[in-house]
């Protein structure tokens, strides 16, 4: 087990270096003026350009630039944004909101997704199965921003059940609708995966044995089948946090949430490259670490998988 974790940690290093190199390259080595837009609509004064190039090591060869950037990154320095605040500070003030949002989304995904999937899987071919299949298909084909707009229109403006936008740090109540919207896509996938996995396992020999032993229907499903069926679903839910990072940019923009997603959106619209690269690198790091944790968890949950 320990060996496996260490090996996975080592494997993540080349991926990390490659991913940050790619993002860094895309932003800083592209033709064009990196200081464009940093002085408003005007051209930047030459002294500022010189300072900027020096500060971000743009006057050095590309690989040296990158290594210096990586060194800064390791020391927790992501540069300063358009307003002169450090990107790390900006991210630190915003992440509690985004985490709250993601928490609501993941909870929603796990609870409703699993319930719908199990219900559909148990009643295979019945009405509820068809209903879940069609509903999830519709959810999957609906982009987050369409769902967000519709949710605002229906639940916020027409029915007035939930607040349409979020102010300040965002309370759980305010973040409820954005969280549901953010989690809906993954929910659909989780429900489908649960259903498929359950249907497959219900045909397994050990389930027949359990039934033959005379165990109650509930025990057969809850103890024997679910435990095995839910493994891939748990992996999926863990991995979906990565997809949510992308979705959060859109969700936070629609609902006016002051989180990491809206910070990224602000960086895009103000063409603030330093802030954009810093925050995206940060999200990719979170994504990689979450995936690592999920992989390790998987081997703990499923004793059949041995990593030695």
């Amino acid at each position: 087990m320990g060996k496996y974790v260490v090996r996975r940690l080592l494997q993540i290093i080349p991926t990390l270096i490659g991913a940050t190199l790619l993002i860094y390259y895309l932003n800083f080595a592209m033709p064009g003026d990196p200081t464009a837009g940093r002085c408003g609509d005007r051209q930047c004064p030459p002294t500022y350009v010189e300072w900027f190039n020096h500060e971000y090591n743009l006057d050095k060869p590309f690989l040296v630039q990158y290594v210096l950037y990586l060194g800064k990154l390791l020391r927790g320095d992501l540069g300063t944004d358009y307003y002169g605040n450090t990107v790390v500070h900006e991210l630190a003030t915003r992440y509690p909101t985004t985490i709250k949002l993601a928490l609501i989304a993941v909870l929603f995904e796990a609870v409703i997704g699993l319930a719908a999937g199990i219900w559909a899987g148990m009643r295979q071919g019945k009405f509820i199965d068809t209903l879940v299949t069609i509903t999830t298909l519709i959810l999957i084909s609906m982009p987050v921003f369409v769902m967000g707009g519709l949710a605002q229109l229906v639940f916020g403006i027409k029915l007035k059940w939930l607040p349409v936008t979020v102010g300040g740090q965002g309370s759980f109540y305010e973040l409820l609708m954005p969280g549901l919207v953010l989690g809906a896509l993954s929910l659909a996938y989780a429900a489908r995966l649960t259903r498929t996995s359950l249907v497959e396992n219900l045909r397994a020999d050990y389930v027949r044995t359990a039934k033959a032993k005379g165990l109650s229907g509930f025990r057969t499903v809850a103890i024997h089948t679910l435990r095995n069926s839910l493994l891939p679903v748990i992996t999926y839910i863990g991995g979906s946090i990565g997809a949510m990072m992308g979705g959060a940019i859109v969700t936070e923009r629609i609902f006016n949430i002051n989180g990491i997603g809206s910070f990224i959106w602000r960086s895009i619209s103000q063409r603030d490259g330093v802030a954009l690269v810093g925050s995206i690198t940060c999200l990719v790091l979170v994504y990689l670490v979450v995936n690592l944790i999920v992989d390790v968890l998987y081997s703990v949950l499923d004793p059949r998988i041995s990593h030695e």
Partner: protein
Amino acid sequence: MSDPNNDALDAAAVVTAESPIPDTAVVEASGEKARSLWADAWVIMRGRPLFWVAAVLIVIFLVMAIFPQLFTAKDPTLCDLTYSRQPPGGDAIFGYDAQGCDVFARTIYGARASIIVGVATALFTALLGGLLGTFAGYVGGWVDTVLSRFADIFFAIPLLLGAIVVMYSIPSSPESPFPLVIFKVVAAMALFGWPNIFRLMRSAVLQVKPNEYVLAARALGANPLRIVTSHIVPNALTPVLVVSTIDLGGYIVTEATLSFLGVGLPDTVISWGRAISRASDLGLIRQVPHMLLFPALFLCLTVLAFIMMGEVVRDALDPKLR
């Protein structure tokens, strides 16, 4: 649907080159002629209403993309501010948007950008991922290791995040010609989309490679190129085709999301993503919900059609479900 990589999850496990030998055993019993895998799948698909719904929708949207004039006689670029924000009715069945453009005409003409981007990205990723995947799987050894680690790097960055950075780095100006604008979006998505197909193709090739008919071809002295093109690829291609179809829907969504965020297609190109973006301002949703509803409906239906088609084909090809 913000990340097509998700599809690999349920699709990858599915049609990994099942039965290169068609189930002759079953067919013999019923006395029919042996059918190929695809002929079998066709018989199953024919009987499923979902297949026909998806097929009809796809045909409609393809025709809409190629000949938008067939659906509307109006010029989508002709906007009159005096009509601004008028609700559906009379001449304009979907109403007018904030600029006084006809929403129906703009929605119809918007199909072209979305469909071209979706189809081109799916083709591009299938080609790139398929070629590299076949190469890595067939050659194996250090080539495989290097290519796989290389793919891991692109796989580690979520599609939408990666595409945002690329599109941000190569912004489109309003003067950029239509093909260039489209190509940028396609390239940005393909850059982060190909590892998905690469992994799928590689594992399918690895499964097909040890089969007897491949060994036989090699023993007969067939050259590697022939073995790959006539024995391995045809038997390993199915999962790639299925996942590419499902991903196509995902790419359309990602393009619309990029356009929505303002880094995808510029305003000079009529697209559903930009239309929804402009309609999403809160004041507008309250006053002119039709500006949001109609492009959104078309976008969802297109994506739905491609995902549904991919799933029907996948189910029809999956021997476990027979």
